C-alpha cells in the first residue's frame, strides 16, 4: 500500500507525542482551569468584570465560559501556536525534511498530514480545557442552571449543551490562529519566531480592536470572533455572530493555509 496523508498524519501525531512542547501546551490547557477553580474555592470571590463571572460560584457551567473570555487574549493563541508554529520549523531545526521528502510521499501529502496533526492538537487542547473546566467547575459550584446574557434562566442540561456548542464555535478562531502559525512556521523555518509572530499577530489584531475610530472594522477582526460563542448564550440563540465567525475566520485561515502550502511545495530543501 502506498503511504499518503493519513500515514503522515499518524506519524506526525507520534512525533507530537514524543515531544515536550506538546505536553506543555496540553498541560497548560488542563492546569489553567484547575488553578482557576482552586483559586475560586480558596478565595471564595468571583470575577465581576467578565460576563458570567458572577455565576462561577453558583454553577460550574460558568467556569469554561469565563475561561473562554479570559483565554482569548493570549493563552489559547499561545497554546495553539506552540505546535502550529513548530510543526514545519522543527523539521528545519532537525534538518529532517530531506529525509522524509526522499521517501515515497509527495510534499503536499506531508504538508496536509502536518495540518491535520496541528488541528488535532489544537482541538484536543480546547477539549481538555473545556472538560477540565466543566468537571472542576461542577465539582466546586454544582451542576446548576445558568443565566443567559439576555437574563433568562437556562436549565443545567440545556446550558451544558450550549457550553459545548460554545467551545465548538471557539475552534473557528483557534483554527485561524493555527493556520497563521503554520504559515509563519513554514516561512520563518524557526519555531520561536513563528510562535512569537503568531502571538504578536493575535495581539496586534486586538490592539486594532481597541483603537478609537476603527469600530467599523470590529466585526471583521479575528479577536472579535473569539466572542462569537456568546450568541449561544442569548435567548433566543443569536446566530449572526456565529455565522460571521465562520466566514471571517475562513478569510484568515484559508489564505494563510494556501500561502503556507505554496511556500512548502515550492521551497528548496537546502541546509543552512
Amino acid at each position, binding site marked *: 500500500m*502506498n*503511504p499518503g496523508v493519513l*500515514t*503522515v498524519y*499518524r*506519524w506526525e501525531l*507520534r*512525533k507530537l507525542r*514524543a*515531544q515536550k512542547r506538546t505536553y506543555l501546551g496540553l498541560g497548560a490547557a488542563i492546569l489553567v482551569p484547575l488553578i482557576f477553580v482552586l483559586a475560586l474555592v480558596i478565595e471564595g470571590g468571583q470575577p465581576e468584570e467578565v460576563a458570567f463571572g458572577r455565576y462561577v460560584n453558583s454553577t460550574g457551567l460558568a467556569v469554561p465560559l469565563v475561561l473562554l473570555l479570559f483565554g482569548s487574549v493570549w493563552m489559547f493563541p499561545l497554546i495553539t501556536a506552540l505546535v502550529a508554529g513548530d510543526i514545519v520549523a522543527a523539521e528545519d531545526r*532537525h*534538518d*529532517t*525534511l*530531506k*529525509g*522524509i*521528502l*526522499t*521517501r*515515497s*510521499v*509527495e*510534499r503536499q501529502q506531508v504538508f496536509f498530514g502536518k495540518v491535520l496533526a496541528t488541528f488535532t492538537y489544537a482541538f484536543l487542547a480546547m477539549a481538555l480545557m473545556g472538560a477540565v473546566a466543566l468537571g472542576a467547575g461542577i465539582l466546586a459550584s454544582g451542576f446548576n442552571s445558568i443565566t443567559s446574557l439576555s437574563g433568562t434562566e437556562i436549565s443545567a442540561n440545556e446550558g451544558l449543551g450550549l457550553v459545548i456548542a460554545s467551545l465548538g464555535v471557539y475552534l473557528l478562531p483557534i483554527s485561524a490562529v493555527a493556520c497563521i502559525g503554520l504559515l509563519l512556521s513554514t516561512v520563518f523555518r524557526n519555531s520561536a519566531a513563528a510562535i512569537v509572530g503568531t502571538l504578536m499577530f493575535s495581539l496586534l489584531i486586538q490592539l486594532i480592536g481597541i483603537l478609537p475610530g476603527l469600530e467599523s472594522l470590529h466585526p471583521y477582526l479575528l479577536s472579535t470572533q473569539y466572542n462569537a460563542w456568546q450568541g449561544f448564550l442569548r435567548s433566543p440563540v443569536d446566530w449572526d455572530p456565529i455565522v460571521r465567525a465562520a466566514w471571517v475566520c475562513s478569510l484568515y485561515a484559508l489564505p494563510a493555509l494556501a500561502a503556507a502550502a505554496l511556500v512548502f511545495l*515550492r521551497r*528548496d*530543501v*537546502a*541546509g543552512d
Partner: protein
Amino acid sequence: MPRLMPQATPIEVRGLVKRYGEIVAVDDVDLTVEVGDVFGYLGPNGAGKTTSLRMMLGLIRPTAGSVRLFGRDPQLSIKALEGVAGFVEAPSFYPYLSGRRNLELFAALDAGDSAARIEESLEIVGMRDRAKDRVGGYSHGMRQRLGIAAALLRQPKLLLLDEPATGLDPGGMRDMRDLIRELSARGMTVLLSSHLLAEVEELCNRVAIVRSGRLAYQGSLEDLRRQAGEGYRLRTTDEERARAVAAAQLGITEVTAADGGTTFSARDEVAVSALSLALAEAGALIVELSPRHASLEDLFFRLTEDELPDVAQRATSGNQTEVAA
C-alpha cells in the same frame, strides 16, 4: 520490486544550473551514471557537490537544466525516487525518537515493504545494539550508519551518498568502504560524493571532478590516471647513453635522471616500444622499463586549483571523456 525500465540510465543530468542570486553553486553540469557504476563525485568542499545531489533528489529546484533518475524527473513527482535512496550532507533524524523508531517512520513513508527490512538493515550497518536509544545521543558516525540503514530500507537500485565517510574513524571508514563495495557487488549503482581521493580511488570505477560548480573531468578512473601525466621509469646497462638515445627519440619527452635510472614521458605506447628498440641498437640494454602512475592526488589538485587551466583542458581532452568545462 519497483517497476523500472531495465535499460533506463540511473542518473542523467543535463545542463544543470543552480544560482543563488549572484552565486552560481552549480554551473552547467552534465553527468551520466550507468547501471553498475560506483561513481565518484569528487571535488573540494564548496564545489557544489551537495547542491547537485539535492537537485538529483528533488529537494531543490534547478535554475536550469534537468535531472532524470531512471528516466524520470524528481521535480515532477516523488515517484522518480522509486528504487532510489540516499542522503545529502549528514543524514538527519528526529533526535527525540530512537534509532529504530526513526527507521519505522521512514519505512512508513515508503511504498513497498521497507518495514520488513528494518532489523536486517540495522544488522548490516551494525546498529542493532543501539537502535533502542534516542538518536539525540548518537555520535556522528552512528548517525551516518543509521543513514545508510535508512537508505537500505528502500532496497534501492541507485544509492546516492554524500560524503559517506565524513566524521567516521578509520575503522568506520573501512567498514563504510566494505559496505559500499558489497552493495555494488550485489548490483547496486552507487553515486558517492567525496573530497577524499583515497576513498574514490578505492571504490569508484568512474569519476567526475567538480570545481567551483563546474565539471573539470568526467570519465573512467583509468583515463584519469593515464592523463595524470603518466610517465615511465627506465633502467639500462648504460644510463648516459640511454638518456641520449631517449632524448633524441620521437615522442619521448622530459627525460630526466632519477635515482640510478631515468624517467621520461611518452606520447603513446608506440613511442615507448620504438624507444626500446633504439636502446637495444645503441647497446644500452634494458634492465627495467615500467609505467609510473602519477598520483591521482596531484591531478586532483591540478584540476581543482584555479591557476592551471591548461592542465584542466588537457585532462578533459581524452577521447573517452566528456568535456563540460
